Every structure is written in structure tokens, then in C-alpha cells.
């Protein structure tokens, strides 16, 4: 019986070997990619010569459908130049990138959403400084405000790629119309509107800060946005670089102002529950009561446009739209909080540098923007290529020379705070810890 089975196994594996050998011989290797830069349709890429047949690997936190759109966006570039771009997106990007880089398996390029992480690799000598062409392209297309975040000790390491604007408040235009409410232009108007909503029996605010292991980040965005409005960009910068302590009275004041909304049982959590329900609601679900008309307003970034249920009309006269989170003190200017990715290079081959340069170009920005759901702070981005109405508003804000742009502070701080204790602290704060204890805790975890 045993020997019978063995024989059968032998015969089976023999058949497999045969099949595989045949398959292996039958499969011809794919033709090596040749550039076709001299053809007319490739005129735009004529400067990117000599990289045909090279492979550039990219590692990024962007995945699924949006990753596919990125690949579509640079397809023409890749076809013309003959460079092969191998793209990989991961939900565990930050931790994995550290492991890979240290283990000697770094990608050629990485899309890094945290300037703090970029700095970590740059200071560790892992990142290569941007080449001359990349630098020229980046300087041409991005404002100093943005380039600063890709620069470490005066050297540019990464040009910005995509962007998002966080200073948005989502609302339901149809509900506003129904009730005769108008979009507030100042902070005080916004609070007055909140009171009106309370009188009308609708909780004015809803929020959710759940985000698996990053739970807490939406609350940190709130603090940053309000601090920027209360104290202006200079104090904000001092706070981010720890020139002033985390528990400075000015931070306490900003946190308390956020608390007057997020920890106010009268104001939250529309359509979801009480204050504490903010902590257990995912950020994806946090704003959904807006379209159910159970909640008046939801402060969240431009990318929240993708979270609405299928069939929601995102437009100024639709089911959901967003207004700019108004200024508190008009004298402090028009602050904009946002985020984005930076393209850092771990190798400096000509092909890597060429791709890095191309990704900083207006050509790429427009090519990607045409495919929907994406914006950039690239000055060459033509707003006509942006189809989504909220993205149009966001591009308008990013290109507004009167606006003061600041990057998401938690992405700038050391990871021990920005990706750990700040999140933890804010989650506990929502869950009942007072402002002082919260800020003291975060201050205590700032690396010495």
C-alpha cells in the first residue's frame, strides 16, 4: 500500500517536472524595452536620454486603485524613455521602509509622507541628495514653503509629489439650504452657526479619530489647525521644532479651544454618540453623518472626498462639500494646514535621478491630475486638469500666494512624539484626560 502510494507520487511529480520544463522552454523572455524618444509623441521626454532598459524600483504608502492611477500617469514617460518602473505600495510603509533600508534592501525611490522620516534617513546617510536636474526642476515648480520640508541641513533630498489640504470643514449643502444656513467666513460665525444647529436639534460636529495603530491622528490635525490660526505660523514652527515646550500656555489655549468643540457634549458627536464615541469611531466613518443630515460639520482633509458613500454628489450644490476652516485672527493671515509626499532617492543611478526629476515636473503633475482624485502643490499644475470640485478648491488654496502653508506638525516632529505619544495623548484627552495632564505627558516623551 505504501509503495503503491509512493509510486503514484513519483509518477505525479514526473508529470509536473515535464509540464514545467515544457512551459519554461516555451516561455520566451520578454523583449528588452527600447526607448523611442525620437518619435514625435515622445517629444516631451527628449531630455531623459540613456536610461532605456534600466529598472527603477519605487516603494510607497499609496496602494490599490490610486497606485494604479500613478502607474497610468507615468506610463507614457516609461514607454518613451524605455525605463522600467517597478512600483510597490504598502499599508505598513513607514515601518517596512526602515526595516528594508537597514537590512540593505532599500528601493531606488520612496514616496515619503513624513518630512520627519525623510530627515531620519537623510541624517542617517541613507538618502542621496537630489541631483542637479532634480533640484532645478523642483525649484522651478515648488514654493520655498514646500521645498523646505524636503530639505535637510540645506541640502534638498526630495521634491514634493502629491498634496492634500487639511483645513477643510465638510458640510451638507442641501441641509444648509434646507435650514437657511450659510457657510461661515470667520471662526466666530462658525461657532454661532454651531449654536444655531444646536437650537435646530442637530449636533453641529462629528468626528472619528480611530485609525488602527495610528488612532488619534485626526485630533492632532485639529490642534495644529487651531494653533496655526490662534498664534500664527511662527509659533507653530517653534512648537514643531520644540523651541517652545509642548505644554506651553499657547498650546494649552489652542487645545482648550479644540476642546470647546470636540469635548462639548452639546456639539458632538452628531449621528454617532457622545464625546467618547469620537475615540472609537474610525476616521473613515467619522464624517458620514453629514450626508445623513445628522451632523452639521466635519473637519477633515480634502481626501475625505473619497469616503462618502457611493452616489454622493460632492459639489457646492450637492450632498457634501467643504469650506475653508475660517481664520480666528484675520491679522494672522490665511493659514493652510496640509500634507503630501516627498520623493526620496536611496540610489543615485542616472535612471533613478531621471525618474525623480520627472516626478517633480509639471508634466507628471498634470498627467496624474487628469486621472482624477489627486492634487499637488506643483506650480505648473493646471487647475483645468483637476476635475473634482473639492480638489479645484484645494488647488486654489495651494496656489494662493496670500495663504501661508504649513505641513502637518505630527509628520514633522520626531516619530517618538509625532507617530506615538501625540496620538496616544490626544486619544486619552478625548477619553477624559484633562488638557494639562495630556500636554505634560507629551512633553515628557519628547526625545532628549
Amino acid at each position, binding site marked *: 500500500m505504501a509503495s503503491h502510494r509512493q509510486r503514484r507520487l513519483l509518477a505525479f511529480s514526473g508529470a509536473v517536472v515535464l509540464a514545467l520544463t515544457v512551459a519554461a522552454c516555451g516561455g520566451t523572455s520578454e523583449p528588452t524595452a527600447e526607448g523611442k524618444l525620437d518619435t514625435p509623441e515622445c517629444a516631451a521626454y527628449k531630455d531623459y536620454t540613456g536610461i532605456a532598459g534600466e529598472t527603477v524600483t519605487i516603494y510607497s504608502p499609496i496602494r490599490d486603485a490610486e497606485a494604479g492611477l500613478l502607474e497610468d500617469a507615468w506610463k507614457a514617460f516609461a514607454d518613451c524613455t524605455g525605463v522600467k518602473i517597478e512600483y510597490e505600495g504598502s499599508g505598513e510603509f513607514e515601518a517596512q521602509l526602515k526595516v528594508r533600508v537597514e537590512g540593505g534592501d532599500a528601493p531606488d525611490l520612496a514616496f515619503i509622507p513624513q518630512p520627519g522620516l525623510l530627515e531620519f534617513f537623510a541624517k542617517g546617510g541613507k538618502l542621496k541628495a537630489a541631483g542637479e536636474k532634480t533640484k532645478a526642476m523642483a525649484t522651478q515648480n515648488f514654493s520655498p514653503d514646500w521645498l523646505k520640508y524636503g530639505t535637510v541641513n540645506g541640502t534638498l533630498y526630495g521634491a514634493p509629489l502629491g498634496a492634500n489640504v487639511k483645513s477643510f470643514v465638510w458640510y451638507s449643502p442641501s441641509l444648509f439650504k434646507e435650514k437657511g444656513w450659510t457657510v461661515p467666513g470667520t471662526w466666530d460665525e462658525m461657532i454661532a452657526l454651531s449654536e444655531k444647529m444646536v437650537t435646530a436639534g442637530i449636533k453641529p460636529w462629528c468626528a472619528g479619530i480611530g485609525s488602527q495603530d495610528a488612532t488619534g491622528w485626526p485630533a492632532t490635525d485639529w490642534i495644529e489647525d487651531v494653533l496655526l490660526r490662534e498664534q500664527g505660523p511662527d509659533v507653530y514652527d517653534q512648537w514643531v521644532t520644540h523651541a517652545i515646550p509642548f505644554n506651553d500656555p499657547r498650546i494649552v489655549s489652542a487645545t482648550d479651544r479644540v476642546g470647546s468643540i470636540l469635548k462639548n457634549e452639546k456639539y458632538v458627536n452628531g449621528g454617532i454618540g457622545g464625546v467618547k464615541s469620537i475615540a472609537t469611531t474610525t476616521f473613515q466613518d467619522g464624517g458620514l453623518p453629514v450626508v445623513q443630515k445628522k451632523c452639521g460639520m466635519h473637519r477633515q482633509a480634502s481626501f475625505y472626498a473619497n469616503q462618502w458613500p457611493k*452616489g454622493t454628489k460632492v459639489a457646492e450644490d450637492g450632498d457634501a462639500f467643504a469650506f475653508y476652516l475660517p481664520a480666528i485672527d484675520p491679522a494672522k493671515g490665511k493659514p493652510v494646514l496640509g500634507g503630501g509626499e516627498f520623493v526620496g532617492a536611496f540610489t543615485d543611478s542616472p535612471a533613478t535621478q531621471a525618474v525623480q526629476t520627472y516626478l517633480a515636473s509639471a508634466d507628471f503633475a498634470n498627467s496624474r491630475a487628469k486621472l482624477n482624485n489627486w492634487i499637488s502643490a506643483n506650480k505648473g499644475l493646471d487647475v483645468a486638469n483637476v476635475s473634482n470640485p473639492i480638489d479645484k478648491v484645494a488647488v486654489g488654496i495651494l496656489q494662493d500666494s496670500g495663504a501661508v502653508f504649513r505641513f502637518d506638525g505630527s509628520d514633522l516632529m520626531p516619530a517618538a512624539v509625532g507617530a506615538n505619544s501625540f496620538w496616544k495623548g490626544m486619544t486619552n484627552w478625548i477619553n477624559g484626560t484633562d488638557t494639562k495632564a495630556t500636554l505634560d505627558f507629551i512633553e515628557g516623551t519628547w526625545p532628549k
Partner: protein
Amino acid sequence: MSTGTETVLAAPDAEVPPTVAGRVRKKLTSRTASAISLVIALLWTVPTLGVLISSIRPENEIKSNGWWNFFSNPQFTLENYEQVLFGSRSASGGLAGYFVNSLVITIPSVLFPLAFCALAAYALAWTRFRGRDWIYIGIFALQIVPLQMALIPLLSFFNYGVSLGGFQLLPAWDLDGPAKFITVWFAHTCFALPLGIFLLHNFMAELPGDLVEAARVDGATHAKIFRSIILPLIVPALASFAIFQFLWVWNDLLVALIFAGGPKNAPLTVRLAELAGNRGNEWQRLTAAAFVSIIVPLTVFLSLQRYFVRGLLAGSVKG
């Protein structure tokens, strides 16, 4: 708990107890036993059932009300499955490619630990040499080393090789393309060893020593003892270890992300994790994905079930 456990006697093919009272009790315990096992089975299955039902509901329904509403308001769609099975991204092809990768990763990652653990466990249980117990305890204790702490050193081992004081003892592996699978097998095998050796050693050490002694007196080599005496007896233990090793590898995301070397070699889990969407908002797809990925491990479990055979040791002298 003790009422439920009385089923050892109450099994269907057990002899009928001779007394009337016994017969009555048998019926009773049999009934409680069935009831309790039914409750456990239910408790363990209902959460999964909820997801199974959700997987055939439309996205907006899943996200706005509970799955039990399916019974009162059945809305049926295969869209979630369509997206999981056919929603392909340009670079990585369809699900089939990931499926092949999963198989290529899993099969050797089960076979190697199975063999190495069985051999090592045999050495630790049935050969005599000094320090044997301490080696065993050492291997046992290695179970606690978290996988995560081993990632960077192991990755460096592949990419930089081993050098001591400027002298290159082992070169870098320098693998590319499909050959990268070797590093995944290597990693999975390393991480499986402590538990595997522990499981199999315990099983082997319990086998009656007289069997082995008798064979040794007859002049059998260790290879012969291992093959013809030990191996047939540890089949159930091997089968259970194989099942679990298969599961761990099949469901592993971390090792694959680090060692597989890019999307072309990525297993199913990588694709499934990706399905949740860029910002995790498409999680309704995961309901379908969970059932697509469960098919293979469940098949393996059911097919290895028949190796859990009763009474292999029947007739032998115990301890």
C-alpha cells in the same frame, strides 16, 4: 465543565452500559454533550457567518446596517467578489498570480520545517549525548524571540552576507526575481523551528522506549529506526504541525512583505491587505476576500484530517 466532558463514554459507538441507570445517564450526558458542542460551534461560527453574509451584500448596506438585516431585507450582490477576483491593477495582474506566489511560498516553507523539526526532535529524544537537554531547552526558549526583531538581522544576512572584522565569511546572496523565494522559505523555516521541534519532541519522547531499545538491540541504524518505527507513529503530530505551519505561512503578511522582494513575488495576503483601499475605506471588499483566502487552508485541514488516526499505539507496551 465536567458534565460536558463525560462524552468519552457517550460516544455513539461506545458499548451500551449494562444497567438501566447507566443507560439513562448515557442518554443524558450524550444530550448535554451535544448541546454544549453545539453552543461552542455556534459561538465560534456566528461571527464568521456575519461576514459571509456581509460579503454578498451591497457596499452601502454593509456600511449602514447590521448583517442580520439580510434576512428581513435580502439584497444580494456579487460585486465584492468580483472586485476581489477580477479587480486587477495594471502592474501585478489578476489574483491568479498572487495565488501562485502563495503556493510557491507555502509548500517549501512547510516541507523544510517539517523535515528539519522531525530530525532534530528525533535527535533530541532518542540519541544520547552530553548537553542534549540543554540544547532542547535552548531551542524551546527561542520561541519567545519575536519575529519582528529578527527581520533586520536576517535581511542583512541575505543582502550583506556575514563579515567578521573586515573579513567576509559568507557572501551576500544576491538573489533576484523568482530566486527571492528562497529567502522567504529560509525565513519561514527559521521562524518555524522552535515551535516545531518542541511539538514533535514532546510527541516523540512519549513514545514507549522499549520499541526503540528493542530495535537498537537488533542492530537497526538510527535512520532505520526513524523511518520504520518513529515516522509511522508520529503521523498525527506531523499532520497537525503541517496544518499549522501551512496556516501561518499562508496567512503571513509580514515575512512576505520584507523578503519576497516586490509585488511580482507577493502572496495573496499582500493583495488582500491592499484591497482595503488606499485609506482603508473599501473594507467591504475584505468580507469577500476573507472567504476567497480561506478556501485553501480549509481544504488542507480537511484533507489532513484523515491522518488523525486512532490507536496507532494499540497493542504496544505503554511506559
